[in-house]
């Protein structure tokens, strides 16, 4: 692995946005081999090998060090590694894929505006319902870390992989931690974001793996790639 391996999302809107962003930086990506190939090259950068990887797997590949750099959301990086600061380096934001990871509660909870308020209602809720308030989320690690920093521990996480914003109305959770861009979906589901409930303002990032094997060649290619992306922001 002497060339630089760059992983980009293999399909959907994220792939399109990544291609657009690379094009804006003067980087033209061509797929190699047949049209459905999973490899690509960048014109004029022979030291870069592009790998098309499912966007949900790029963070894991960075963590394992099987790729050098990848395009992925900061939210996925922070969620999938308890030691993200040592495993990877966020090189630069890419100005797309904006999403906030937030704590949202039913809008009818007039008496709750902050995490401290959640802390106050948790025990009365338990007395009334026999259990702690449940938080539906797919961001279990981000949630736990955020609430721990705020000194709030009286809740239960229920893992949710889809339609998280509907769980409070459905009665399967009391509140949620989820991503939002405009807040519209949250409002439509009768939810509001806590005043101090923004856990992370995330966007797509160029992320480098600190545990991959780096050669002088791949390092040079990475620097060049980063320079082009940063000068085209």
């Amino acid at each position, binding site marked *: 692995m002497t060339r630089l391996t760059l992983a980009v999302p293999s399909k959907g809107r994220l792939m399109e946005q990544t291609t657009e962003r690379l094009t804006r930086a003067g980087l033209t990506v061509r797929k190699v081999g047949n049209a459905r190939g999973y490899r690509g090259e960048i014109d004029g950068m022979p030291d870069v090998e592009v790998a098309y990887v499912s966007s949900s797997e790029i963070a894991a590949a960075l963590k394992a060090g099987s790729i050098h750099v990848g395009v992925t959301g900061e939210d996925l990086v922070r969620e999938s590694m*308890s030691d993200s600061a040592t495993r990877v380096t966020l090189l630069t934001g890419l100005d797309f894929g904006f999403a906030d990871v937030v704590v949202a509660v*039913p*809008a*009818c*909870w*007039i*008496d709750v*505006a*902050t995490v*401290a*308020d959640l*802390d*106050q*209602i948790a*025990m*009365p*809720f338990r007395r*009334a*319902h026999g*259990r*702690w308030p449940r938080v539906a989320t797919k961001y*279990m690690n981000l949630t*736990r870390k955020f*609430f*721990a920093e705020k*000194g709030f*521990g*009286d*809740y*239960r*996480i229920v893992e949710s992989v889809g339609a998280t914003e509907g769980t*409070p*109305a459905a*009665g399967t959770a*009391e509140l949620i931690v989820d991503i939002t861009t405009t807040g519209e979906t949250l409002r439509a589901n*009768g939810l509001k974001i806590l*005043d101090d409930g923004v856990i992370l303002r995330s966007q797509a990032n160029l992320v480098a793996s600190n545990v991959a094997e780096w050669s002088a060649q791949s390092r040079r290619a990475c620097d060049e790639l980063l320079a082009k992306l940063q000068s085209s922001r």
Partner: protein
Amino acid sequence: MATEIAQSFEALEAQAQLLMSVFTKAGHEAVAPAIIQPADVYLDVIGESLRARTYVFTDPDGAELCLRPDLTVPTCRLHLWRNGAAETPARYCYNGPAFRFQAQGADAAHPREFRQAGIERFGDVERERAEAETVGLTIKALEKTGLKNWTLQTGDLGLFRAVLNAVRIPTRWQKRLEEAFLRPGTFRTELKRLTEAPGSSDLGLRNRSLPADLVGSLDQTDFAASEAALVAYLDAQSIELIGNRTIAEMTQHLLDVVADQTASPLESAAADLIEQYVSVTGPALFAGQRIAALLKGVKGGPGAALDAYDRRLALLANGGLDLSRVMFSAEFGRTLAYYTGFVFEISAPGLKADGAIAGGGRYDGVMRAAGAPRDVPAVGAAIHTQRLLATVSGIAPKEGL
């Protein structure tokens, strides 16, 4: 990984057999509770912080399970499974592995897989006797394996509750301070907040986002009218009522918040008293006198709780314990998740502070979390046998032990 291999397994087992023989001779039945446990009970008692240090996983049926992080909850569940009535008095002892995720990386003093030997006793009505005997038996077992230079650190969450009772503060504040006590940072903020006049700082204004027109229509003396006011407010704002939390629950909390905003602050004398109590630390014999002196003249003093404290010490002395080796700290026990009263820890010189050889205490709420209809008196102790072996054999814990 070397930390998982018990190279000194034979020595460990021989030591554990010695411990178990002391326990069984004292009437504790040897049991082997299940290693795989439902995560529910732990998450309920300890909370989500459990996930940060426990191996939680999902089985093919989707049930959330964990590798037991201790043997206390598993022993409670075993007791419940055996006896329909959780109050049935019983004494158990065990020796086996427990598992904890070490976020800073596992090392010899903090392995992710370690062994515990311990005792639990349920249903004892003579509370201080059960506590003193549990400590006494633990120390007797430790000494049998050759441990000499131990120290005993104790704490008493019941005494803290009694102090709160004695200073006569509103019940809802008392509850809040009690809950906050387990989290030192929150506790200080909460205490400060209660001593400040309403609106005098950000802390006092924490719920400033409450709509004034709603606050104006709440009535502390008429719950039904307050409920109706909240419903009317939600209607007027076209906010739909969703979720499991009821109008009544929200109304009660709103009333409490508003009451807090208008209530006179906690008298500084009362806050001082609480703070002075929290800072009491030293030899257990003197700590009792210090607390008695602190609360002298306070109406309704700590009475029963302080009597219990003295009785426990007397029982420990009767059991042959040298009281000069017993320390007390009012803060001790705060960070130990499920204890409800007396707590203790036994350590030896040379071990780091977070690496006690044995610890335990009273945990009356666990049996209910495990499925019993009500709290059940419960006292127990667990010994970290690898640390014990390292200490008595005179070698520092090292890789492979």
